[in-house]
């Protein structure tokens, strides 16, 4: 299919963006990496009047460490997440997630802001943001507000973003030495959206005790799912085979996965358990793993 006729505006500043929104109202849609939006245009699923390209807006770019937090600009490409030294050091989960997303050509264009705003329940970055307890900076002509990633995703492809509002940046607390993170997924082919995936973050103290566990699952619900019961089952326990089994058991009540083309809900639930065990096993001390 061919695209419908659409207008295009390249915003060079936030003011350009607000101006375009004032002029075109609801007909204006933000374009970032285009890796989702342009495909949906070719399906004629959406027919925006005007695309406002935000990729030249400097305020939305860059990764920096400021005020004790790591700030990742919304325009940061997936490929940049994979190679940025600050991300690697302070939010290694994002760096680890990037290679799971699609293919190199898509990673060179797709942005973290676009991924979070689109809110695909099988996408990696929203789950990572939830696992890392990220704060999203939302910006509109009316001003800025900050929301937690956990509450940002409100349903299938839906978020707290209000008309005219954009994601400007994602902020996380820099990883502490005690932090352990992992991302694992099962996808039919490399680069496919996951049938089920886990983004896991927790802290392990010197005695191997778990603190602040945040296991977030993707591809198993209508949004990234923070596994509250599994997290409770882990918190404060020494991480060992029994703790992992308890978390896997508790996970059953955290998930209510839908069926999809790949299989029934039982399959997703099963895969989520397998991934939980595999992810947590990675955090075990070497001798436990051997056992």
């Amino acid at each position: 299919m061919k695209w419908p006729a659409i207008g295009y505006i390249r915003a060079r500043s936030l003011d350009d963006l607000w101006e375009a929104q004032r002029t075109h109202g609801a007909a204006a849609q933000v374009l970032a990496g285009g890796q989702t939006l342009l495909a949906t245009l070719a399906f004629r699923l959406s027919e925006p009047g005007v695309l406002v390209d935000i990729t030249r807006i400097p305020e939305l770019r860059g990764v920096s460490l400021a005020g004790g937090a790591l700030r990742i600009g919304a325009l940061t490409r997936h490929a940049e997440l994979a190679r940025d030294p600050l991300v690697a050091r302070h939010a290694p989960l994002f760096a680890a997630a990037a290679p799971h997303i699609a293919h190199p050509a898509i990673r060179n264009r797709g942005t973290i802001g676009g991924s979070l705003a689109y809110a695909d329940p099988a996408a990696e970055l929203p789950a990572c943001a939830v696992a890392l307890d990220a704060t999203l900076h939302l910006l509109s002509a009316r001003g800025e507000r900050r929301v937690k990633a956990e509450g940002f995703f409100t349903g299938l492809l839906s978020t707290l973003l209000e008309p005219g509002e954009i994601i400007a940046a994602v902020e996380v607390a820099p990883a502490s030495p005690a932090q352990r993170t992992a991302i694992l997924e099962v996808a039919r082919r490399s680069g496919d959206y996951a049938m089920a995936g886990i983004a896991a973050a927790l802290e392990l103290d010197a005695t191997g005790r778990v603190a602040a566990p945040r296991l977030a699952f993707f591809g198993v619900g209508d949004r990234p799912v923070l596994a509250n019961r599994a997290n409770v089952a882990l918190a404060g326990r020494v991480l060992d085979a029994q703790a992992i089994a308890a978390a896997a058991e508790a996970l059953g009540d955290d998930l209510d996965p839908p069926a999809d083309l790949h299989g029934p809900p039982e399959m997703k639930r099963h895969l989520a358990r397998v991934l939980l065990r595999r992810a947590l096993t990675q955090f075990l001390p070497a001798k436990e793993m051997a056992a």
Partner: protein
Amino acid sequence: MNEITPASIGLSREDLPNSYIGRSVPRPNVPKLVQGRATYTDDVVLPRMLHAAFLRSPHAHARILSIETAAALATPGVVRVFTGRDIAEVCDPWVAVLDHLKGMKSAPQHPLPLERATWQGEPVVAVVAESRAAAEDGVAALRVEWEPLPAQTDMETALAPGAVVIHPELGDNLVFTRTATAGDVEAAFAAAHKVVEATFVTARHTGVTLEPRSIIADYNRADGTLTVHQSTQAPHMMQGVFAKHLRLRESDVRVICKDVGGSFGIKVHVYPDEVAVAAMARIMGRPVKFVADRFESFTSDIHARDHRIKARIAVDAQGKILGFDVDDLTGIGPYSVYPRTSAIEGNQVVNLCGGPYDFVNYRCTTTVVLQNKAPTCQYRAVGHPIATAVTEGLVDMAAEALGMDPIAFRRINLIRDDAYPRTSPSGMRFEGLSHHASLDKLLEMVPVEKIRADQAAQRARGVYRGLGFASFIELTNPSPFMYGIGGARISAQDGATVRMDPDGSITIASGVTEQGQGTEAILAQIAAHGVGVPVERVKVITGDTQNTPYGGGTWACRGAGIGGEAALQSALALRAQILEVAGAMLQAKPETLDVVMGEVVDRASGTPRLSLAELGRIVYFRGDTLPRDLPRELVQTRHFITKEYPFAFTNGIQACWAEVDVETGMVKVLEHWCVEDCGRVINPLLVDEQVRGGIVQGLGGALYEHCVYDAEGNLLTTTLADYLVPMSAEMPDIHVGHVETPTRESLLGAKGAGEAGTAGAPAALMNAINDALRPLGARVTEQPFTPARILKALGRI
């Protein structure tokens, strides 16, 4: 530079002449393809050309109550809207049956339906506009009022009481059924030491050509001719179809097919949207282009392999196969596809089950039924992967039941290599096959002992790996017994014209076609070999009904075996003609001369006597210097058709080494091997590519590819994100070996090689997965082998 010279392909002076056959000559058309200088149908732009887009049925089955076109006609750029009735004014419907398939029936099909849509995706209304985008705007503005009707989607209930009869005038949904029997199946099974049975399912899937179906039809009112540029496998067949149904003379239709970006059988059928395009061009007197997009490809390209097969095998205590008993059911959509019909795939299952083995008792029935899904028809390796999965699945299960090694079991049961000629229980005649030599060669390539040791070691660590085998036969070089005998104007013969021009260069025009598989490369090789010129001096013309000898095109593995032989015969005839002329010039007997690398040489000494360019100069410009009555036609045409055997069967065996993650159900193919016998290997590079590509397509069908419908007949897999094709990251290293048993029907001795990979790969993988799962007591027989199915078989979900 990519110039192909004798030196660049490792030829020495001593190798010459006649040394291109059997060499890995790179394809001459590759630079053009990779530099973007190919001419696909969509690259053709004609003056006054318009573009078509179709409104397709959103329902699996619905009555068309009304079609409101005013808003579409008012859309900027839209020129005209056509409904089924408009097209029917100039175009007659077709009924896709073949006389030799006894009792076969199907309903008349119009390019655009007159009353009812019978599958989701069926083209219903066409909009013609100044651009494709404008045509799509027009389609969006159409208003069609539908009355949704109950849909018959499940093939299992298609013949049951209460089924929706899709074409009431046919009485029921039965298209065709055939049973082949040999020996006494009941007695053999009753007396057997062991009987093993299973139900196999092969998933409906499709070809996914990189270049989608494409056509431009241009009717010239001034001279009454229709010129069609089309991405097709069979230009001459399409010429006949357009002529017949648009009421034109065959000679007034010309079909041109330049480069094709893959076909795999998808582009050898008559599609209603493409015929509609020709009809619209006929009505408007303007060229009309239509290029299917990926959405419409998924809903309107033919699908294939939608089969459920219940089958059993009987063996004696020594492990000899006593018989096969097979019941095949297939759903083909609402119409049999024209003109090859949709009964052939089921018929092939009947022909091919048990094919590699020596046994006497056979019963196989196919039942072909209608359903409200996209039509199915012939797709690469028609019926072979199905028959091979059934046969090889049962063979492995029988070996297991007897506690025998699967290789040893095959060893006792494969037809002996000295047992030919031979007729199979299903009536197939084999001229010469090499099952045992192929197995020997495979065992040289596959380190079975090492693999078994690794398998045991890995199992101890909870890693499940399996090794699977699949012997197969493949039907190639078809004679008129395939289609012509049934009344279809589908040519089994093919022709080639080889000529020499004044500069000594050679041009070959052939009726077989290039689909991206390298046909033009082997034609150039054969012509160079036959005449005696460097291959870079050969130009190839294919894909033009006005400029090539009449032929069947590309299908059922015939390009090399049939088209190649015609090329060889005409090239040899041209060489003989050249030598006669040279003899007169050099005052030597033609038998004492030869043509080597573009030069006439003394046969005994190899001393160059005359270049072909010099010979050409004299013949074409100084003919006055030659003897008056010397024949001087430096152009020769030969046609070839097989005569002794209805088909040239080939054979081979594959092995697959795979790992199953028993917690996630994911399958990783670790390594794959294929030994095949396509007779004379003309170009090892191309044959290996064909086998590898075929294996990848076979593995795709076994692991990923699936046209998934819901119960209402909605196709759920309409993008490449949902319909999963195999990609390089998941594909294993593939090792290819050859045994050569040339057919004696031709000088060239070539049989087909394009389908061997696809025929055996799914079965080999299935057996590998089941070998991996065996210690856990699980087995899968339903393709594709998805994580969900494997986890279910393991009892984990």
